[in-house]
């Protein structure tokens, strides 16, 4: 179950947006989809959301193929696009109620679901204002709520954190963590790697339309990276350490032995960012 993608490819004319995507996203986990601009993340998500047909390869969402059973896939998948479209003159509440209706819910169920979701994404106070007056971050939250209307088992989120203020980001993170803990499959793409770092259980790296193999990711992870420590007197120092965490531990032990009063000691950039930058550099 979850998401299984095998050698999916899609081109637009002579632009190969996705060349070869292969990965698994498991239920109960938040899977990060990481890659530079133009690496094919959005195209991949469009294929997963049953909007775009892959030229070759196979996609299974909860065991269903979007090519042969698009409605089956849509019934279990919530998709939050990277662009924020909304029915401008409709209110947030109407938007969610009507989306529920589009998923075949009876009117009463759609209304109570809309009320529930407005609370969840903290839009209660703006529920009866037309969506065109919402700010970017508020539209983002409405977009997330819309993806959740039919209580999907699989969530595809394209840049869900962009436009959110720090409090809303923390909220989003908690929410997604909660969804994963309920056994849902969450696939999140984002440029804000530190953000993903804190909530993702695993990551899929994409580069030039291709998912990066586990070996390459492992190699990138263990390459030389910067560690940063601060001392009691407020000094911040950066050291380059080549051999991964055991070596870092040895360096820290050495510092303490030398009488340096270390209060924090951590990688200068997160795992995802380090891997991402290293893959970028290795191209």
């Amino acid at each position: 179950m979850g998401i299984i993608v095998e050698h999916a490819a899609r081109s637009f004319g002579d632009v190969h947006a996705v060349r070869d995507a292969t990965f698994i996203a498991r239920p109960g986990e938040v899977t990060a989809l990481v890659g530079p601009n133009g690496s094919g993340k959005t195209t991949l998500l469009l294929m997963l959301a049953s909007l775009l047909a892959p030229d070759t390869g196979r996609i299974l969402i909860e065991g269903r193929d979007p090519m042969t059973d698009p409605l089956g896939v849509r019934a279990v998948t919530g998709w939050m696009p990277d662009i924020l479209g909304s029915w401008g003159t409709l209110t947030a509440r109407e938007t969610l109620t009507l989306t529920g209706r589009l998923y075949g819910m009876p009117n009463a169920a759609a209304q109570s679901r809309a009320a529930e979701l407005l609370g969840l994404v903290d839009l209660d106070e703006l529920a009866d204002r037309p969506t065109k007056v919402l700010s970017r971050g508020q539209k983002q939250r409405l977009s997330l709520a819309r993806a959740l209307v039919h209580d999907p088992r699989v969530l595809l989120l394209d840049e869900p954190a962009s436009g959110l203020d720090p409090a809303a980001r923390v909220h989003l993170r908690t929410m997604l963590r909660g969804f994963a803990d309920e056994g849902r499959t969450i696939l999140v793409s984002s440029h804000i790697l530190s953000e993903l770092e804190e909530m993702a259980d695993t990551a899929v790296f994409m580069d030039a339309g291709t998912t990066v193999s586990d070996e390459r990711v492992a190699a990138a992870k263990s390459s030389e990276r910067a560690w940063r420590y601060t001392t009691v007197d407020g000094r911040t120092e950066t050291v380059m350490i080549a051999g991964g965490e055991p070596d870092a531990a040895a360096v820290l032990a050495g510092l303490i032995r030398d009488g340096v009063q270390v209060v924090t000691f951590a990688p200068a950039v997160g795992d995802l960012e380090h891997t991402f930058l290293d893959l970028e550099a290795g191209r």
Partner: protein
Amino acid sequence: MTTTFEPQTEQHWSPPQRASWWAGVWTIASIELRQRVRGVAAYVLLGVFAFILLLVTIGAALAVGAWADGSEGAGGAVYAIVMVVTLLLATLVSPALSGNAINGDREEGTLATTQVTLITATQLVLGKVLAAWITTLAFAVVAVPFILYTVILGGLSPSTLVVSFLIIVIEMGVIAAAGVGLSGILRKPLMSVVVTYLIVAALSIGTLIAFAIVGASVRSHYTYVSESADWARVDRDERAGLDPYQADRVPKPEYCTEVYSYESDVPRFDTVWWVLAANPYVILSDAVPTTYDRYGSPNDVFGFIKLGIRQAQITPQLEEHYSDCDPNRYESSEPRNIIETTVPSWFVGLALHIAGAGLLVWGAITRVRAPARRLGAGQRIA
């Protein structure tokens, strides 16, 4: 905040049944309608429309003297004018209301979020056609008081009212469907609106121009032969006690001695009359049942338009012969005969319109269907 989600064992809803298929269409339509109803523009347009109809009604009534005493039948003219203006304004407004239904959503980023729901492409497109149709029908509804007033003024038959109103309603649906269809086929809203207008113009005016140009350029040779009686001899013989007449004081053939003839070319509108069948106003006039006065002339304006169209079907006589000595010399076909002996074409035109609109709608459905295999150049999905 903790989530209030329930585990995945049960769903809030059951999968859509066949019975709810139209409910899905209606949901799409109501989303469209809600967005339009909240815009001020629609109400302003309706107000302007009502005002124009008021002016037209008053103006037409004054022009034909419908309020004067003993002006029976003049109300029918007012009625026809109001109907034609209603159709005209509806065809002018409808493309603007329907021509961006789908590609406008694409640009706003609301099409894809609808496509990922359990709504099918067919439901989506039909819902938008329905909404566009209903919006255009608002104009027909605004016209109802004027139409009823002119019906009463003209003392028209219910069948005239029902048929003409039905045709207008169907024509509005055709334009709404064509606009929505084109908005699904063409990428740019501006293009689809313009193309919809071009189609309306081609049918309303283009057919007339094609009819006139082709009809006038296809010409046949025409000969006219006229025999005049020698009236001086007729008078002389009558005075002399001879009887120069056949019945009804028509001279006997031997008195017709002055033969005059001329030749020319006549336009052959009978070769292109069918072009007019696609004209919405022709469809309207041709479909309305005609009532006749005691001279066999149509009672209303639709009838006269119908007469004109039907006359175009008749192959002109390429040799005409007139003689003062022919007892039947003044006999001509009365209008009623012409209408009753020629072919009604409105259902052909209407069928063509419906088929064309259906084709465009089908084209839109195939393009809205997801997962999409083929995308137009520069087309975005979301």
